[in-house]
């Protein structure tokens, strides 16, 4: 069969067989592996991982040291909002040319940093190393030290050449870099009931909504890391009494550093869906052990749920029984989405993540229904295979998954960080339901070939049973 002809059979690569698992199959599941070459993974690289984690720190200068490609594809594409500085929305690069690849790029980096700091007056600078920098032997640390001294602005190297690993490796490098700022600020005046919101990137203003919940129940948010992030907040975040970690893949390392060196306990939370958002509020209230906090938290949850439940119920009526596939970055989000979909009366038949770990997947496997397929580090062909085999009605993913869904006449909901709509918190659940419903219930799908074929089949069956 030729490659461009329609295909009914898509095989999973042998190398990847153990990363595809069906609940109830009794087989072993493998994850946390390097991507197989040629598999067309949906993952990016270590550079991408560190770039996206630090990106929302709005009053810092972010400069990519390397040839232009690495910097240009992430220029102002993410939905992380800032309440003030918009400096992070620029794409700065040393844009190394051949002569610098041969003779070194240190001079250009130094000049770039000095000029940019003078012009934009950032509170700190992050310097991202790309593949090339690792190879040509530029001493980025030395340049950063030199420029820090000259300008009195912290210049922090981020060790993130793409080949170092997956996004996860980059997350680690980002945490290490961010941690350089931690502990350098004044923590006086911070409430004993205080938290850092970690792994919350303020997509469409989500961090603002969540911060407001905590403030309403009497808990101070010292820093959101890194959504609507500020250098000075990072400097004093060690003054918080508790770390709540949402996107665990990206932020656990920083939270652990804060636990080890500043004694701040960490708890994993999620803000997707009513259940998880409520739980996240209770987790903090419970931690501080003040009954008044819990009382207020319960009241808030009651109020919020009452506000949105009637609307959610209306959506549920229309979405009930629909089948969903989801493929997202981290497993904790997948976990929440399964629950959120359930709240809408929908069933998850395929769930996967780019970078989940064994512990994450264990949880995911536990909450999924029997027969659900779970995939780690999947690719377009596998995803298409299961979309077809499972007769999926809705796909939840990011830009790279979107055309798979749309080509096959399947509804789609963007749950990646390029989206501009808040999906977290109680209000976010309503947006989520709305996003799902707008696509699933659209009248256009009847024209898609897959649906026409299905309709034809049903009509033939009816005709067959009606004929004598």
């Amino acid at each position, binding site marked *: *069969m030729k*490659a*461009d002809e*329609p*295909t009914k059979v*898509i095989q999973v*690569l042998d190398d990847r067989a153990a990363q595809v698992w069906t609940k109830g199959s009794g087989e072993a599941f493998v994850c946390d592996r*390097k*991507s197989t*070459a*040629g*598999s*067309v*993974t949906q993952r*990016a*690289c*270590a550079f*991408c991982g560190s770039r996206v984690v630090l990106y929302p720190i709005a009053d810092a200068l972010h*400069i990519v040291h390397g*040839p*232009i*490609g*690495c*910097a*240009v*594809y992430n*220029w102002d*594409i993410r939905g992380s909002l800032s309440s*003030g500085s*918009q*400096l992070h929305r*620029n*794409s700065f690069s*040393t*844009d190394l040319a051949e002569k*610098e*690849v041969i003779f070194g790029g240190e001079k250009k980096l130094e000049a770039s940093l000095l*000029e*940019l700091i*003078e*012009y*934009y007056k950032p509170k700190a600078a992050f310097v991202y190393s*790309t593949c090339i920098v690792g*190879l*040509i032997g530029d001493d980025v640390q030395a340049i950063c030290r030199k420029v820090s001294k000259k300008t009195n602005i912290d210049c922090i190297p981020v060790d993130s050449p*793409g*080949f170092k690993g*997956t996004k996860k490796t980059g997350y680690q490098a980002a945490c290490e870099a961010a941690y350089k700022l931690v502990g350098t600020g004044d923590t006086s005046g911070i409430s004993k009931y205080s938290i850092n919101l970690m792994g919350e990137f303020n997509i469409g203003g989500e961090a603002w909504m969540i911060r407001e919940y905590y403030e309403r129940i009497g808990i101070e948010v010292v820093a959101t890391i890194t959504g609507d992030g500020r250098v000075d907040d990072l400097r004093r975040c060690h003054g918080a009494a508790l770390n709540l970690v949402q996107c665990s893949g990206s932020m656990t390392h920083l939270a652990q550093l804060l636990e080890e060196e500043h004694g701040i306990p960490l708890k994993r939370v999620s803000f997707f869906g009513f259940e998880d958002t409520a739980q996240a509020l209770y987790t903090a209230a419970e931690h501080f052990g003040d009954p008044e906090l819990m009382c207020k938290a319960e009241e808030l949850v009651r109020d919020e749920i009452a506000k949105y439940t009637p609307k959610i119920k209306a959506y549920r009526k229309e979405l009930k029984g629909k089948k969903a596939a989801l493929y997202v970055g981290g497993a904790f989000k997948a976990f929440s989405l399964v629950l959120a979909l359930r709240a809408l009366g929908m069933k998850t038949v395929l769930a996967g993540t780019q970078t989940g770990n064994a512990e994450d997947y264990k949880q995911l496997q536990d909450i999924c229904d029997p027969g659900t397929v779970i995939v780690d580090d999947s690719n*377009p*062909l596998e995803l298409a*295979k299961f979309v*077809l085999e499972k007769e999926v009605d809705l796909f939840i993913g990011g*830009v790279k998954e*979107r*055309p798979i869904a*749309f*080509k096959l006449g399947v509804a789609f909901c963007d749950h990646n960080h390029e989206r501009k709509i808040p999906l977290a918190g109680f209000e976010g659940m309503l947006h989520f339901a709305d996003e799902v419903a707008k696509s699933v219930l659209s009248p256009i799908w009847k024209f*898609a*070939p*897959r649906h026409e074929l299905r309709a034809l089949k049903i009509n033939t069956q009816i005709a067959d049973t009606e004929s004598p």
Partner: protein
Amino acid sequence: MNPDNTTAQGTPAEGELPASATRNACKLCSPLGAAMVFKGVRSCLPFLHGSQGCATYIRRYMISHFREPVDIASSSFSEEDAIFGGARNFEQGVENVISQYQPELIGVATTCLSETIGDNMLGMIKSYQDKHNSSGPPLVHVSTPAYTGTHSDGYYGAIDQLVRTFAKPMTAKIAGHVNILPAMMSCADLRHLRELCELYQLSPTILPDYSATLEGSSWGEYHRISPGGTSLEEIEEMGSATATIEIGHTRAYLKNTPADYLEKTSSVKRHALGWPLGIRHTDQFVTSLSQISGNRLPESLKDERGRLVDAYADAHKYVSGKTAAIFGEPDLVIAQAAFLSEIGIRPIICATGAKVKKWKQLLSSEIEGGVADVEALSGTDHAKISARIRELKPDLILGSSKGYPIARELSIPLLRIGFPIHDRFGGQRILQVGYRGTLAAFDRVVNALLENKQDTSETGYSYL
């Protein structure tokens, strides 16, 4: 307020403009251009030899513009591979691609990483093929380190490699067979180029032709690789054409282009032409088609040309004396500048991120009325372009979505053309070739100016 001239404190940035760093690049990297070309070959899978991020970033960028599946494989370098070379990963990657996609061709583009460590692509391809007794699909490779050029170079480079690798030297000619080597155009442009050839009874091999692979129909079943594109056989037979039309002003001055190669190896006559946008350039294009086919201008085209001249007359006063800033790939910018000057708009800023030798000179040969008032910026970035736009305040900006921040800041209409367009729909089907494409482009320009005038007027007439 624009992030490119505002400090972290939200105050206007002052002092000397930073010159060393690139601020908001007006270019993409060369492997992207190569991948786009490989997407235009039938059953071809693009393969980037380097770190995983390169392939993923490029996929996402292309998907956001074309809104189609764009699968690009990678050899997914690890730290070890970066030290010891990527041969092992390359081989494994190619095998996996063959087993998953069953492609008829694998188009390999290198990356900064593999180029810098000095991976010998040709050697690796040969050793792979030797090991497999040359069974399996052929592989072609193009060298695309991002530190030597832009996506435009990757685009032309991949066409060049495809032709040199696969086109067989041929002496026998097939009447009516013509090759078209387009600049980086939209899917609609490529379809219309074919239509124009067919109007002259010519049968074209267009390389690349991603008009269907990057703008296809809805599917009932999944296709491993999007249907469409120029087949390998067609590329092999390019030597049997009587002529090659090579589109792109910057290409016309070059020797050793793929059209030049076909001329030398198979006596296929090279027609080096500009982008057929505007009456002058479309006239040149159809003249070439006439010469190649021996057929006269078809009535339908004559009518289209007539309607275009008539439309110019109807609306000329609304555009006359206006000024514009254009940015994008060199050939796109020259084409637009030629067109705008033809209708009486002054292209006062002509900017490209690529470093183009004699940029102003190239522009001067195409801009009617001289280039005394034209700022020709090459090797530039969006922050610098914005600074010039603030100073010169043109009436119109033409370019990709990346012009939006400055257009918004100054309330200047932005006409989206080129790549990437990811804040509007339909970037893949903007037509700007031929008389028909020129008419569409002309209407867009006129209406953008009218809309702006209407929106900012006090009275707001609905009758203009």
